[in-house]
């Protein structure tokens, strides 16, 4: 150690700032993080947002409610169907419109398939971010099957626009039930493969265990939701506490862990794959017969008042807050997006870690930038 003193004299250590993003592959979109680092130790992470802000909330103030549904696809594009559902639910609740059971069940099935598809993509990218490129192809292989089902029924693979206020745009394709069942059987054999390939990988475990620990108190205070919060032992599943559509008819366990580290967030999402699969399995044989849509007025006017609807997207709690003055457009519409709140805790849990850890943490927070930059 004494030999190093000469080096210490000539070089002094001081914190400096570097930019991570907006074109960094690990930020999964146009997110710029301004890192204050001392050597490789992170002292502060400051997100610089707004690269793809489209001001959806302002656009909503001049659009009709049917048009707003289309804008929500472009927020969290990996949970597009659940976003659509949130706006439809808020309109239906405000109009006190009872949608048929068939609609509720189909919405829940497609919502859970969306969650599986989103988690598949996340799993692939999670592996890629920590240096295991193979997972990307495995994740995308299985996700393709879900997207094919969506394409057949909804006509689109990603931004589906399948929900409309009052029900669904079209009835399901005749092949839908058959293909979903085929997918369930296929995917049940694949999740154990995921575990073998990545979860049990010792290098992966060393990269993730004990990294980026978030305590339960902080998770609540930062407004965390979804798998990020549940990995810290904070039970917050909207599907359990404020069930919507057909979620009150199914039984499932809320994926909960208490460690709060990166590995726990990973494990929660893997368990959610099983739970979502089980929800789809419970409903797919019991889709009630009936209409796929209730007729609404061509121009929807919500009664004067305030409405709030929360749903559980693949990333956490999405809230839609509508203030209506009785006209065809909302007076004010606010989207409480899960990604925005989850991003705010990034600096807190990345502090004291290395840049490599930050990449692993960001992968498990599962940021979708258009969701943050609404």
């Amino acid at each position: 150690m004494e030999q190093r003193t000469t080096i210490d004299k000539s070089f002094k250590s001081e914190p400096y700032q570097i930019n991570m993003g907006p074109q960094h592959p690990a930020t999964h979109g146009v997110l710029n993080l301004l890192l204050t680092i001392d050597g490789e130790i992170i002292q502060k992470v400051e997100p610089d947002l707004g690269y793809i802000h489209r001001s959806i909330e302002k656009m909503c103030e001049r659009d009709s409610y049917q048009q707003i549904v289309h804008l929500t696809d472009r927020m969290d594009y990996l949970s597009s169907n659940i976003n659509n559902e949130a706006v439809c639910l808020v309109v239906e609740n405000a109009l006190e419109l009872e949608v048929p059971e068939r609609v509720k069940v189909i919405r829940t099935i497609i919502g859970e398939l969306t969650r599986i598809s989103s988690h598949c993509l996340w799993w692939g990218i999670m592996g890629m971010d920590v240096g295991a490129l193979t997972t990307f192809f495995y994740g995308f292989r299985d996700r393709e099957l879900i997207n094919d089902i969506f394409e057949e029924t909804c006509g689109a693979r990603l931004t589906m626009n399948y929900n409309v206020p009052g029900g669904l745009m079209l009835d399901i394709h005749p092949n839908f039930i058959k293909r979903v069942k085929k997918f369930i059987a296929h995917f049940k054999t694949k999740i154990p493969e995921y575990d073998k390939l990545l979860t049990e990988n010792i290098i992966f475990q060393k990269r993730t265990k004990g990294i980026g620990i978030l305590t339960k108190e902080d998770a609540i205070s930062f407004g965390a939701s979804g798998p990020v919060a549940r990995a810290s032992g904070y039970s917050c599943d909207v599907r359990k506490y404020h069930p919507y559509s057909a979620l009150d008819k199914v039984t499932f366990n809320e994926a909960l862990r208490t460690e709060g580290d990166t590995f726990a967030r990973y494990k929660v999402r893997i368990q959610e794959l099983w739970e979502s699969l089980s929800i789809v399995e419970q409903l797919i044989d019991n889709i009630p017969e009936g209409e796929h849509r209730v007729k609404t007025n061509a121009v929807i006017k919500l009664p004067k008042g305030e409405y709030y609807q929360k749903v559980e997207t693949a990333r956490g709690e999405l809230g839609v807050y509508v203030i209506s003055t009785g006209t065809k457009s909302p007076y004010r519409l606010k989207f409480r997006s899960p990604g925005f709140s989850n991003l705010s805790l990034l600096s807190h849990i990345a502090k004291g870690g290395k840049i490599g850890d930050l990449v692993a943490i960001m992968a498990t927070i599962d940021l979708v930038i258009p969701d943050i930059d609404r």
Partner: protein
Amino acid sequence: MTNEALQGIISSWFPNPDADKVSEITENSDVEDGSEEQPEAQKSINPSLLEFIEEGSQFLNVLVQPEQFYALMSQLKTNEETCFDYLFCLSGVDWGEDLGVVYHLESTIHRHIIVVKVKTEDRENPNLDSVCDIWYTAEFHEREVFDFFGIKFNNHPNLKRLFLTEDWVGFPLRKDYVDEINMVIK
């Protein structure tokens, strides 16, 4: 907890609005050096400091005056009976004449929800208290509100624009914002 019970508890924190008001005015007049524009007479017009509204919303709404706002919020969080520890939505609203902020709070223990509203009439220099130190999530959300509505939050650690650039003129989500090039008016 039911809305009635919540209303009862919250009202009990401010037992005698008249007594509170008198003490508050005398306090303020001690501190104020005349720079505050708001005349004292206007304060005494307000019949009560808290206004409970249940109509037109699925939750219990509380409208609070800016002076009492921070005290109410910290009480809502720390009181064991209410324990609103989860601030799940913080929205800026332009009500035409007033600017304000709406806070949606939930208790993760009791699972009840309340909506707190605070308004200010000052559109030139709107100023409200920050709740960053009560709920960490408010830091980003308040920056968003500052960015789009221009509401300044006292005691905010890092109040600057979040989405827009520093040199952006105006606050886009206000109702009187004009942008002839980029905004399509139907």
